[in-house]
């Protein structure tokens, strides 16, 4: 069972680690602490994977992230009064604090699919393997006979194109 949890954690890492890291880094500007909290969240989710609401996994994950962060602040006595109050008063404080993230992730399907379609074929293919088929860069490079650096460049370009389209609110949708 332990090995299974490990595997589960690996898959969750790929999906949620960047988002959790940026979530924590915005509030704690320290890589090591953000990393520890991220691993804490991933461990908690992988232990409870079966009970995650499959239709809204991200809501669940960020709920846990918020709890972990709250505990962290409680433990470290450096919490500042404003943050503590924010936590106490607002249930949906995450949304308030992460407006772009939430705005972007609420873009319509047509906008998102359109942004992906607009990418050059090779860039799109590599991005899809990386983000949706959850392959590592090394695996994609081996599969397609490319260098890791080339794969990285394609994913980078795809990510920036996507971000720009979504940040415009999908002007072309």
């Amino acid at each position, binding site marked *: 069972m332990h*090995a*299974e949890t490990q*595997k589960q954690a690996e898959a969750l*890492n*790929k*999906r949620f*680690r*960047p*988002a959790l*890291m*940026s*979530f924590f*880094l*915005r509030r704690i*500007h*320290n*890589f*090591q602490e953000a990393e520890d909290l991220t691993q804490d969240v991933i461990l908690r989710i992988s232990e409870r994977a*079966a009970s*995650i609401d*499959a239709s809204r996994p*991200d809501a669940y994950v960020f709920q846990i992230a918020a709890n972990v962060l709250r505990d962290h602040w409680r433990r470290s006595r450096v919490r500042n009064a404003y943050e503590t109050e924010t936590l106490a008063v607002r249930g949906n404080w995450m949304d308030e604090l*992460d407006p*772009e*993230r*939430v705005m*972007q*992730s*609420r873009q319509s*399907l047509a906008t*998102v*699919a359109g942004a*992906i379609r607009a990418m050059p074929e*090779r860039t*799109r*293919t590599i991005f*899809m*393997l*990386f*983000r*949706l*088929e*959850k*392959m*590592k*860069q*090394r695996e994609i490079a081996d*599969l*397609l*006979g490319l260098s890791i650096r080339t794969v*990285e460049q394609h*994913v*980078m370009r795809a*990510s*920036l*194109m*996507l*971000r*720009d389209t*979504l940040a415009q609110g999908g002007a072309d949708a």
Partner: protein
Amino acid sequence: MTPHDAHDEAAAIWAIKLGDDALSPAEREDFQRWLDSDPANVDRLASIVGAWEAVDRYAASAPMMTLREEALATARRMHARTPGMAIQRPPVWMLVAACLCLVFAGISVWYAQQPTFYSTGRGERQIVVLDDGSKLSLDAGTRVKVRYTRDGRQFWLQEGRASFKVAKNPLRPFSVSARGKLVVATGTEFSVELIGRETRVILYEGHVAVLDGDARPRAAPGMFDKKGSAGAGYVMLDPGEELVIAPSATAAAGAPTMAIREPANPLPSADWEAGQLVFENEPLTVVVERTNRYAETPLRLGDARVGLMRVSGVFRAGDTANLTEGLAATLGIASRPGKDAIILTAPGDKE
């Protein structure tokens, strides 16, 4: 499209690294330095990650599925052009033949796609390592048809029980057909068994989807939603779960019943691969069928009633005498030699 500055590009690269492997100590330091160098950097990072989340959110939607299928098809084409990576090329002599004669060209392609059959006789087990590194393990009395093509790995369980350890490759979906059901897998370990009128699937590790109907799915295995809705025409299994598919009680209704059950701990891993037959509250019909895959003299049920009696226990495959003694001691089931078989009868039955 706005040109991207170095800050944006760096943010995207860091997001990619965070989503891939763990950072090396040197990379951690670089990353911290990059974060500290400009307070806006963390926002840049968040904006990349937010864009990814928008994609993840629609991962299972129809338009996104189409995009995913297209991406996989393109990747397959790119993969095929990669030198030294071609899969299942016909042998060189066939290529020569193909050059000599166009008619032969057709034949060589046909030959390369011919299925292979593996089968085991009574009391015999077999392990086959396939050329992609996947492992096929056959219980006694089992017959499996295998067809490997460039873009798929297909198996048909025609009789008995087999377990599969799948080498991960999203470009070559791995599927097992059994009695009109299809089990689709990614990197995983599972077994499929035909027993009585039931089909049983046990998942040891990873994920599989079991589909109604054995047409090859258009979707790649990763595309099945976790805990697929019953109406979606497939069932997802979690490790440790067993899916029992039985024909419906009323023959007319047609629709089979699919029920997931969680076997008692510890997971009854593929015990049969180690020569053990493990039964947990199974009807005697199942016990007899599994035992007979090994028995020189098969067991036969004296009547339908005895077949319904429930049995739990661990027996050595092929040791029929030990089994019949156990059945007599615990359930009072009598055994007597019949013509070409040992007949089992329920206590109180006289013949």
